[in-house]
């Protein structure tokens, strides 16, 4: 860990408090050697309109996804992307973004697939930083290129594929999409474009827990007792469960993956990034419609 964690008492109750930093902490630590701040947004132009001074941009679409195959980039490309942004294997990376860190958490999850050890989220993300009147700049960061090693991505620990989900049926699944998508009345998030899934509904037995229930109005994560109420009491998750979360393409469930893994401390949580755009178009996979989780296929 290149930079000491944020000691804020507010984070102490979480399973892995070192995964969060506050806006105060970040402001005080800007420019600290070994720290790189990265902005990762849903709207890929937001960084250009103004960002935290010194922050680099990580574009979830062009930086992290393979341009041809539906997959993330491989180790060589990841090394090139991070090295160009001044990130070494030992760098402390703080990621923040729009929409309650929705995409920032997804980017953090991709970093995790490559085993980058010290990667944290700015609690509250871009909106909180701006709401508090902190400094922004439109000057793009010009980091000095550094060496990042070529690491083979680990797709077995935090990532699930369709066949993994089929084999997993009977274990907890969390569907983090909107209630309308879950029930099958639509295949896209409200106010989002049609994404081409051919069938609507959810994976049998999946519990519906929309991702935003983990976020407070100011975009910060909810306190632990509220998160426990949502995920343990309502959704019935408990320590030792093997959980898979999914959404449409794995971005919203990246947020939930962060909450379950780093705030609640569940181990072995996986994000199914194929999600509904794959499952809802795959031939002969089981689907349930309606508001109830439904039964396992016979």
């Amino acid at each position, binding site marked *: 860990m290149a930079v000491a964690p944020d000691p804020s008492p507010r984070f102490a109750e979480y399973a892995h408090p070192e995964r969060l930093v506050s806006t105060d902490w970040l402001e005080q630590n800007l420019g600290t050697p070994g720290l790189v701040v990265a902005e990762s947004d*849903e*709207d*890929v*132009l*937001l960084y*250009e*309109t103004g960002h935290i001074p010194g922050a680099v941009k990580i574009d979830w*679409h*062009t930086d992290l996804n393979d*341009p041809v195959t539906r997959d993330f980039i491989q180790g060589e490309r990841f090394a090139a992307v991070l090295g160009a942004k001044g990130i070494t294997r030992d760098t402390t990376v703080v990621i923040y973004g*729009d929409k309650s860190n929705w995409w920032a958490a997804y980017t953090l999850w991709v970093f995790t697939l490559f085993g980058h050890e010290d990667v944290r989220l700015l609690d509250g993300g871009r*909106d909180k930083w701006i709401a508090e009147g902190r400094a922004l700049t439109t000057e793009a960061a010009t980091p000095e290129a550094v060496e990042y090693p070529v690491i083979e991505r680990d797709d077995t620990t935090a990532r699930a594929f369709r066949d993994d989900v089929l084999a997993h049926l009977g274990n907890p699944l969390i569907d983090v999409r909107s209630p309308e998508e879950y029930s099958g009345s639509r295949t896209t998030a409200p*106010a*989002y*474009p*049609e*994404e081409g899934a051919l069938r609507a509904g959810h994976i049998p037995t999946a519990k519906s827990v929309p991702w935003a229930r983990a976020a407070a109005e100011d975009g910060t994560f909810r306190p632990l007792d509220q998160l426990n109420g949502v995920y343990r009491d309502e959704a019935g998750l408990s320590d030792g469960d093997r959980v898979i979360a999914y959404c449409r393409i794995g971005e919203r469930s990246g947020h939930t993956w962060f909450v379950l893994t780093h705030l609640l401390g569940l181990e072995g949580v996986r994000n199914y990034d194929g999600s509904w755009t794959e499952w809802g178009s795959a031939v002969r996979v089981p689907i349930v419609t309606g508001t109830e989780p439904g039964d396992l296929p016979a």
Partner: protein
Amino acid sequence: MTNPLPESLRQIRDDFLELGQPDRLQLLLEFSNDLPDLPERYRDHPDLLERVEECQSPVYLFVEVDDDSRVHMYATAPAEAPTTRGFASILSHGLGGLTVDEVLAVPDDFPNTIGLSAAISPLRLRGMTALLGRTKRQVRLRTAA
């Protein structure tokens, strides 16, 4: 494929295609910053505006057809949604002043032809396609006898 692209849209397309990928985003940002303000007469009448449900951010549009059968398209989108603002601005500039027939003849896949599909996810570009489609629909509504 035979529909001729109006000069205004062709110019915008060519401007984008002449640039490398990072500069295309920069040009989109310039369009975003240059989205014309809503005319005074609509500012107090949000009920006159149409919500574009397909866009990922709250965007509203209003289409006028003037006495010379020229089309004017206005849109609003929040500053937190610069990409959406950019899309609306391209259409507002590119369609503004065209005739009804010219607007209705604009190819529906225009948004996919301006070289942004590598820089911006295809899902987002669909928001611009929806904006164009809704603009045409309003034009038809306003010119229906």
